[in-house]
């Protein structure tokens, strides 16, 4: 948060140190943050942290064991020797190389497109005046409520008619727009882009596209990055539509491929865990690096306008 902004210069007026700290604290922290967390709070949070992380950790543990060990009580809590073997087998069995490539293509194309289209549309809704703006924005918000189940049947019919089943464009095309994205960028640009800057660019004779390239995109960069990551996570994890439309195992996404690992009468549990781990690893990596920004982005998008 912005506590650093209120740090006093070193030669600040001599005040009783304790008093000064406390006063700063209340000023710096926002609502409700005036109390320090007690030990109970830390314990509860630690428990929730454990619950959040344990299944992920244990996925790796289970992937490193063999099935006989997994079928014992108590179950293993620490790594065995098989992790890399199992990862390798899972990689080959589920054809994960191709699946990773496909999912990266799908998630990459759709998140980039969503970010671009959401930024220009969000800018128009946030800062430009045009007839029908309010009504169109209501439609955008309303579409966030439509369940995807309503769309999959006709989409499936369209795709079948175009002979696109088991092809990546069938997954990519419907995921190129996001109502949430438009809403998110609009919220951000309302606050982050002062009207004066646009007007100044206008007075200098810039066309709308120049304004977009030279004013809006630079100003929106942080939000674009966060939206891009959120959309990447979402498309990477998408299951229903790829599952329906990529039915032949030759060309699936990671999620469909990993789901396929669980089939069969005597499934190899350690192998399944290895696949689950592999499918999640790239996103966990993204979170490890950009976690703070993603958290900030979700919280930013949550504050209603």
């Amino acid at each position, binding site marked *: 948060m912005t506590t650093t902004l209120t740090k006093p210069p070193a030669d600040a007026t001599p005040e009783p140190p304790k008093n000064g700290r406390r006063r700063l604290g209340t000023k710096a922290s926002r609502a409700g943050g*005036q109390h320090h967390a007690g030990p109970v709070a830390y314990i509860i949070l630690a428990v929730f942290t454990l619950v959040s992380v344990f299944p992920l950790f244990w996925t790796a543990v289970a992937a490193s064991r063999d099935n006989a060990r997994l079928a*014992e009580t108590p179950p293993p809590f620490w790594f065995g020797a098989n992790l890399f073997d199992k990862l390798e087998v899972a990689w080959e069995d589920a054809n994960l190389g191709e699946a990773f490539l496909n999912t990266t293509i799908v998630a990459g194309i759709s998140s980039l497109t969503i970010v671009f289209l959401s930024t220009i549309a969000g800018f128009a809704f946030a*800062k430009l005046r045009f007839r029908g703006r309010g009504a169109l924005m209501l439609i955008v918000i309303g*579409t966030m409520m439509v369940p995807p189940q309503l769309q999959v*049947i006709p989409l499936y019919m369209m795709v079948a008619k175009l002979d696109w089943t088991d092809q990546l464009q069938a997954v990519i095309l419907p995921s190129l727009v996001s109502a949430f994205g438009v809403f998110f960028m609009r919220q951000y640009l309302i606050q982050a882009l002062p009207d004066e800057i646009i007007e100044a660019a206008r007075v200098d004779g810039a066309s709308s596209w120049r304004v977009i390239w030279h004013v809006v995109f630079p100003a929106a960069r942080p939000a674009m990055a966060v939206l891009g990551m959120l959309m990447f996570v979402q498309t990477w994890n998408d299951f229903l539509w790829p599952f329906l439309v990529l039915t032949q195992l030759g060309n699936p996404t990671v999620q469909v491929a990993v789901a396929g690992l669980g089939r069969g009468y005597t499934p190899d549990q350690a192998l399944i865990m290895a696949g689950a781990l592999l499918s999640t690893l790239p996103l966990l990596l993204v979170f490890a690096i950009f*976690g703070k920004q993603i958290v900030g982005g*979700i919280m930013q998008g*949550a504050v209603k306008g």
Partner: protein
Amino acid sequence: MSPPHDTAAAPPAKEGGAAPARPPVESPETLRKRARLSRRWQRDVRWSPYAFVSPFFLLFVAFGMFPLIYTAWASLHTVELTAPTDMEWAGLRNYTRIFDDEFYWNAAKNTFTIGIISTVPQLMMALGIAHLLNYKLRASNFFRVVMLAPYATSIAAATLVFVLLFGRDYGMINWFLGLFGVDNIDWQNDKWYAQMAVSSIVIWRWTGYNALIYLAAMQAIPQDLYESAALDGASRWKQFLHVTLPSLRPTILFTVVVSTIGASQLFAEPLMFDANKGASGGPQHQFQTLGLYMYEQGWVNQHLGRASAIAWTMFLILIVVGIINYVISRRLRASS
């Protein structure tokens, strides 16, 4: 949603040519040029907003709106998956048929109970965690990021892991409960336990996300509200009840709506929680949701028309939920 802020209601754009006192030294040539530029500029201002929003709407109409309406049309026909373009008019038969279908009602009931037992604890825990995260906290960013880790996990991966954790004979959860003398629970075949297990996957994945949304809203509450409440002698608990909760009402309603939508669409969790990975939601359909039932009708039994009818009933249920929410929020606003 509250009406959009009218930040863009800026004064009318200043037009270049309208400057009042211009020295009259310019040739007619430059004046014409200026007029032409100004016209182009006006056209740009007038039409570019539509250019900026139209790609979204074009794609949305093709892949969002058209399918929505077409589903309604398809639900009035007999359509088979094997020949999706051969449609035979059926009137309301698909609807009357599903209303007489015990599996439809079973799925509706399951969706409802799983929705309740996944949404209510999830949002309440999220509220509590957000409250804790709102204290002055060491390593607050660490807690926030870590609690979001489940959100990064895909449904497929999470469900596979939970299936193993919920195993009857060697699962870790039964082992843990066994430490307290609880007998092994058959999480997959017992109706209530299976529904709880499916709900726990949802709770695990979404609690941290919702906590962050609540935290954001809590940080937007003005500090003076707490100060004056403290002056009036309100305890921290009273402050939470009488300041935090009322201020969060719009956010809470928002998350309720979003979680309800999510719960009504539950599909991949029950699909993959089934030991046979079938669409029936367990051998006795004990955790088959509407989403799963729609899939079973459409893609297993190949009746796309019937599946469309199920999809539309799901949408209608959501509309009803939306209206109830709207009424509640209006009542609450009126009473405060």
